[in-house]
Structure formats: C-alpha cells, structure tokens
C-alpha cells in the first residue's frame, strides 16, 4: 500500500496531537515501522492496525479520525498543494462534486500506484447529491466526507454532508447544498502554483 496513506496518518497524529501520541500509536499497533516514508510501499495490513491503535489512543471512533484526516489535508498549511490540486476540480463546489468521478484518475496521474476507490456521483434532485465509493481502502468514504466538508468551507458553500453507511458494495455519502454564496470563497488562481509547490 502506498506510503502516502501511512505518511498522512502519521502527519495528522503528529501535527494535531504531538509526536508522543504517534509513538504510543506505533507501540500499541505492533507495527514495526516507527516512521513512514511517503514514497515507499508498505504492508496493507498495517493500515487496519494503525487505525484501531489511533482510535484507542485518541479515544474516538475510527470514522471520526478518518473524517478529521480528510479535513486536515485541506486545511493544514503543510498540505496547501493538496487543497490546490482539489480546487482544480471546479470553479464552484457543485462543479467540484461533479468532478469527483475523475478523482481516482487524477490521483493516479499525480502519483502512480496511489489507488483510490471508484467514485460515482449523482444529483437525482437539484442540490442533493449521492456519492458512492466502491473498492478499497475501506473507510475512504469518511476521509472524503472530511475532505469535502473542508472544501465546502473553502468555496464559501454551506452544505450538509453525511456518511450514510454501506449499501451493497459501496460506501454512500449524501450531500445537500444549502447555499453556495454562504461565505466568501478563499479563492483559487492557476497562477498561484509557484508558491503552493514550494511547500
């Protein structure tokens, strides 16, 4: 499994709670890797062990932790480039939602070997979206909820997002857009790239 996934969990725990917590998570998980590298591959079984150790050490459910990781990726200054790459998806939050089908493909373009679940987006009723995530890694739907919630904020859109659980083979997310002009858009311009990539 791609090191970026593990590195992200490590960065989230370290940046949000401190490196002591990360050491404790590692000890509790029984994983024999003290620190993960973004550009190496690791045993997929580590993911499950790490997440359950995180849940116990941080005293919250895995679902909540995964959501927090999604939000962390968009809001933390260290990952400004991820926010930018997501904002390439569309000029508005609804456009971004409609571009999510392309997310796994875009991700593969960016980092070959980083495989995300297949994503299907429908808008059966205006402003009411249903997002299906099919395939591993399990729990990705929760990360996506955190990611999209933070991005809705970023676009200045008021939206309600809910992970409604599994249906057939898919993790299902429901999104209801209340107001696309709720707050000021944090903005995005193609030409800011120079600063973002320095991160």
């Amino acid at each position: 499994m791609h090191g970026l996934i593990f590195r992200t969990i490590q960065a989230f725990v370290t940046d949000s709670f401190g490196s002591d917590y990360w050491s404790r998570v590692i000890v509790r998980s029984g994983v024999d890797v003290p620190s993960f590298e973004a550009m190496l591959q690791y045993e997929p079984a580590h993911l499950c062990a790490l997440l359950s150790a995180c849940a116990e050490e941080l005293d919250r459910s895995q679902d909540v932790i995964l959501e927090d990781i999604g939000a962390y990726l968009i809001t933390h200054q260290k990952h400004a480039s991820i926010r930018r790459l997501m904002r390439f998806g569309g000029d508005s939050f609804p456009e971004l939602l409609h571009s999510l089908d392309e997310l796994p493909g875009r991700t593969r373009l960016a980092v070959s070997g980083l495989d995300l679940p297949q994503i299907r987006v429908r808008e059966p009723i205006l402003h009411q979206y249903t997002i299906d995530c099919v395939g591993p890694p399990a729990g990705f739907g929760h990360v996506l909820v955190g990611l999209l919630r933070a991005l809705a904020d970023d676009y200045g859109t008021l939206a309600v997002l809910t992970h409604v659980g599994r249906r057939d083979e898919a993790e299902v997310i429901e999104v209801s857009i209340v107001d696309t002009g709720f707050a000021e858009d944090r903005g995005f311009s193609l030409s800011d790239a120079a600063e973002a990539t320095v991160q």
Partner: protein
Amino acid sequence: MIGSLELLASLRPLHICIGKTGHITQSGRSIAKLGSGNLVGQRFLEVFEVQRPSRPSDMTGLRQLSDQVIRLRFRAEPDLALRALVLDDRSGGLILDISFGIAVVSAVRRFGLTAKDFAASDLAVELLFLQEAKSTAMAASFNLNTRLNGARLAAETEALTDGLTGLHNRRALDGALMRLGQSETDFAVLHMDLDRFKTVNDTLGHATGDTVLKQVADVMRAQTRQNDLLVRMGGDEFVIICPGLTDHLRLAGLSDALISGVSDPTLTERQGAQIGASIGIAISASGLEPATIIDRADIALYAAKRAGRGCHRVWTPDMGTSLSELDA
C-alpha cells in the same frame, strides 16, 4: 447558422484575424490579456515576430505560410514562445489559431490566466494540474532521497569506525590499503601493541580498560598528522598508516612520542597499573602488496617485544618474512 467570425470568437479565445493589408482585424478574448492590450488595428508583423519556418517581413511572405504551424513571439514578450496554425480566410486575409504549447505553465504565471482564458476543449488546465502534482510528488521524493542519503552516510561512517575509541576499524584499513595499493604513494605502517594492558583489565576492571583505550586513542590523535589513518584492530592492538612518510628518523621520533605518551603514568590514574607500548614499523616498497607491508610491521613488532618491550623496531631483511623465521 452562427457567423464564422462569431464562431471563431466563441470557440478560440487565442485567435487573430489579419486583413489583407496586414492589420489585425479581430482577436480572441484572451489575446488582450497577454500584455500588449487590444491589438485590433495594429500591423500584425509589428506586434509579432514570426521565427519559423521562415521569417516573413510582409503580408505576401506571411500568406505563403498558410496551412502550416509556425513559431512566433510577441515583440514585447520575447521569452514567451508561441505557436500557431495559419489559415487563409479566402478573402485575402489570414486567421491564426494560437497556442502556448509547453510554455503554458509560464504563461499562466506571467499573465495570471484562468481556466476561462482557454478553450473548453483545451487540456491546458489538465497540464497545469499535472505540473503541480508532479512538483509536489517530486518534492516528496526528493525529501525521501535526502533523508535516505543522510542515513546511508551515517551507516557508512559507523561501519568504518571503532565504536569505543572513534578510530577507524579493520574494514576501513582494508579499504585504505586497497587504495594505497593502486596509487604510487609511499607509506609507512606502524603496528602498536600495548604492554601490560591485560593486567589493567584484570585488576582494575573492563571499565577502566575501556577508559585507557580511549586515552591511548587520544595520544595517537595528538601525535599523528591529519591524513594518517588510525586504526584499532581489536583488543589492545593498533595500526597507523602514514602516507608519504618514509623517513626513518621521523618515524623513530613518532614512535618514541607514541610510546612515551602511552606510558604516561597519569593515563591510568593509579599506581602500579602503568602500561606501555611496543611498535613495529615497515615501509612500503614498489612492487609489494600492502598486505606484505602489514606482515613486515607485524614481524618488526614481535622483534620489538623480544628486545624488551617499550621500544620500536623497523623491519629489516634479516628479520625474515614470517614470524617463524624470526624465531629460528
């Protein structure tokens, strides 16, 4: 049916129409953002310089490029390479469909372009996405490489260092001898063995023994030159390689300084536990393997011990080439 000029304006944000007099008659909405303002009414060849495949200076020359892809640039922005397809508009004028090609990344930065400045079918935004994603991934890889390289250097140093004294170890000696064997440099080998060190270890304990070894290493560092190689072979046995030093008098002086430094009674800080050292020296000679020189220093060391310890001996041919010969 939509008019052709209107169609051009909605589909191609980066086009230019040139009338038969060579003046620009229409330009796409994004052209004006490229630093030269509204171009309509200006002479095309005064605003742009066509570079390839030919360098036309008038409308006739330009017209000959119809149906070809040309390279051109703004005279005001000479660093921005553009390319364009030239089309004959069938009424004496020309239409140029312009693209940035690979220069799109710098063009976007230079002029603050947005997705709307490109045709909807243009992959420019995907190219920019890819460029940013690639930079981010490369930065992560670069980071990893830097850390791995740091770890590699630390491991290499550790693999060549004696943990207790910080001197080099036997592996480092092998590498140095190999390099010396391939070079023309003359060198001397000093093989030093501590006298009565076993007694210190047995009576004062291993901790004191270790301290003494560290102090011996300090003596060696103080008495040698910067490019001499100091090696702890294990136990109380040391080797010093002195590249370029073959003068017997200077080697004798170095040996005396080492022996007197090591024999300093304050080294062990206790009465009755004074150590000493014996040294065997051999000097390289052309055509000899470095391993042979090491053997000779070993024989000379044995001779120094037989001469009553606390002294040095330089190998001479009468000592022979093996320890058994010396005993005979």
